[in-house]
């Protein structure tokens, strides 16, 4: 079925973070806790789906030469809406995510999908693409956060996990982000090599 293929593509075969390696900067900074990861994921899904839909709606009106600035304006509008909504309704999350909320506008995933898909396909397909890619991104963020939060603070959504474990602080500091994504990517590569070698 078409939908199932799309979901498989967004979550696994073309996972924006772990396979296409797009949107690195926020993912390492934000994956220090599950709450942050999900918050960022929802924001990205909103911006991605929204901008994909608008770009798709306007794809025949935007001349090819100015398409990048136009895409940027559309994406930036959605990001600003998300910024304001977060400040108003979830200010604690906004403070945790900090500078990375406005930086969603330069998240390569969104521009890449607008350029590669939304500018060439219909609204419904573009919205679905945005949703699926966003879900894939959120999933990979959650995987990273799960590892970092449990190893680094011994917590899961604020509740303790392993009794008597004194957490390794390094996992929620900068180096931890690098190591975690290195090993998760290595694991993904390992499975892909095995699958290709079969």
């Amino acid at each position, binding site marked *: 079925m078409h939908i199932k293929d799309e979901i498989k593509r967004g979550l696994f075969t073309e996972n924006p973070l772990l396979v296409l390696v797009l949107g690195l900067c926020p993912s390492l900074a934000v994956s*220090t806790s599950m709450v942050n990861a999900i918050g960022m994921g929802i924001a990205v899904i909103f911006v991605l789906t929204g901008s994909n839909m608008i770009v798709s709606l*306007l794809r025949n*009106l*935007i*001349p090819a*030469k*100015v398409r990048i*600035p*136009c895409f940027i*304006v*559309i994406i*930036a*509008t959605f990001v*600003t*809406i998300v910024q*304001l*909504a977060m*400040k*108003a*309704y979830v*200010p604690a999350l906004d*403070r*945790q995510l*900090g500078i990375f909320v406005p930086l969603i506008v330069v998240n390569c995933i969104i521009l890449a999908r607008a350029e590669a898909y939304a500018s060439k396909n219909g609204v419904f397909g573009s919205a679905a693409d945005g949703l699926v890619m966003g879900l894939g991104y959120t999933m990979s963020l959650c995987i990273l956060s799960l590892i970092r939060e449990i190893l*680094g*603070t011994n*917590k*899961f*959504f*604020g*509740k*303790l*996990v392993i*009794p008597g474990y004194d957490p390794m*602080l390094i996992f*929620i*500091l900068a180096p931890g982000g690098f190591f975690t994504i290195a090993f998760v990517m290595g694991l993904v590569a390992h499975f892909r090599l095995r699958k290709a070698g079969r």
Partner: protein
Amino acid sequence: MGDLIKLIVVLFVISTFAGLAIAFTSARTTPAIAAQLAAAKQEALKTVLPGCDRIEQRDGTAPLPETYWEGVRGETVVAWAFETAARGYSSDVKLMVSIDTAGTIMGLTVIEQGETPGLGSRTQESISDKYVWNGLFAAERKRPPWFSSQFAGLSTARPIVIDRSGGEWHRMDETRKRALTGANAVTAITGATISTRAVVACVEKKAAGWYQLLARPE
């Protein structure tokens, strides 16, 4: 030339719609944002001035801060609360401090900070004692952050010492905690010396200064 015109027109139209969308959202969210800030401040005041019937805002004249709050029980003023900010490691740590009429610190709350997550951010950390298997969304008794509660009972007349011999406050028993308060000492956050020192220095200096000014018989 026609191309350029089309370019400019399209960009202009999109920008206008974008601007309108943003302005609309801003108009809807600005009151909510202001309400959030006000609520946070009220929350902080209630935390540092427990047991007061009324909390009244007063305007101050230099060298007092512009606004301060009086905690009133019955008809007498029992404590004052102030907002201040300590220059922390990577941000200003905004504090709400309260002192009672005897010059003892009644309470401290960290309102806002942007310190390193996992280190300086532990100034706002409340220690959880619930495990995941207790239920992921089980209601948890909201305990005040240990870092701020250790300031309660300290005197503004003496310097505040940072005690490094015993580990962090939340791991100590009651006798040890009482001994620390008696010695006008607090414990530091492991690995966040600068943030700790910043808060301690700020509280020490400011609280003493304000107490001098307010307790002076007029």
